[in-house]
């Protein structure tokens, strides 16, 4: 299953997804996509396109067609298991709510 937006064969340059770390201590976050002939130019185009206002300190690019996604048609089954397991969350434990430092 490829990523949405995979440009297929019609375009001269393939599509790349861009991830930006906005400052130290934060994760890279998806910023958008762009076209570039190869990974070297993709990271440069990403610098020009997505960090013109100092939005980033680090950039990842990945070819859109290289991304594997979970199957959207099976999202019901795929993400059902955590439903009903509220005991995984602290908010489930109401008896201890008023106890300090818990």
């Amino acid at each position, binding site marked *: 299953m490829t990523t949405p*937006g995979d*440009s297929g064969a019609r375009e*001269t*340059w393939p599509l790349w997804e861009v991830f930006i770390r906005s400052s130290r201590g934060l994760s890279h976050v998806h910023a958008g996509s762009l076209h570039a*002939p190869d990974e070297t130019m993709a990271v440069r185009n990403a610098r020009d396109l997505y960090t013109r206002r100092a939005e980033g300190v680090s950039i990842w690019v990945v070819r859109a067609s290289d991304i594997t996604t979970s199957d*959207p048609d099976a999202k019901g089954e795929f993400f059902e298991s955590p439903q009903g397991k509220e005991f995984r969350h602290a908010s489930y434990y109401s008896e201890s709510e008023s106890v300090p430092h818990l």
Partner: protein
Amino acid sequence: MTTAKTTTAETAVEQAEFDRLIESDSRVEPRDWMPEAYRKTLIRQISQHAHSEIIGMQPEGNWITRAPSLKRKAILMAKVQDEAGHGLYLYSAAQTLGIDRETMFEQLITGAAKYSSIFNYTTPTWADMGSIGWLVDGAAICNQVPLCRASYGPYGRAMTRICKEESFHQRQGFEILLELMRGTPAQRAMAQESVNRWYAPALMMFGPPDDDSPNSKQSMAWNIKRFSNDDLRQRFIDMLVPQAEVLGVTLPDPELKWNEARGHYDFGPLNWDEFYEVLAGRGQANAQRVAKRKKAHDDGAWVREAARAYADARMEERLAS
């Protein structure tokens, strides 16, 4: 999406899930099932929006080489460059709906896809850089801010990024006009003359009156569009009047008057015949705009092909080693 699966019963389930997302004001994401009409509407709207950014570079790009100060030259370069960036963000968003940029480009060149008619007007004076920023970008922002909450996730995210960057565009335009209005009589006349030309076309950017806007209702039902054309136009006019007072320019509408009862400004009729004429290709620069875009794309073909050939050769080398 596997076509074999889309039996009527399953479509009904998918449709119900889609309806639930829209009703709860949640977001639709690229791989979700969506009605074909929703997908088509989005492709039409997002690509039209992207084309507007790209074609919109031209009337301003026209002044980069003649900007009257180095500061203005830098600002204008940054602004026109931003528009290329905004076009790219939007092409990316449209691409998640299963259309590639090359196809969208072809639709622009053949006229199958539209772009905002406003960019078919020409920019004979420097003051037009001010009017475009203040009036055209101002109207665009009014239109765009609600789109940050559009139901289609990638569109909303692109718009959020664009709106953040766009606020400088309107301010720089306003300041161009402000500087002109504080200047010599010739500069003041240049500013007023330009505002006279851009005012009505900017108001028409919100689209025809609600009664004549067939697509609006469905777009609002799908949470793509949040406010009607007329509501947005009124909101824009209400904002413009006090700004025009700060500038000291006259808005060219003798019927423009505060209506206490409505709590809004009343305004005179707009020339929708002109709007439809420009839309139909009889604007000042329709043919030139598209021809210039096509030329840049055609002239660049050998560069894009060279870079592709280089990348392919490197890939083969890597696989061979």
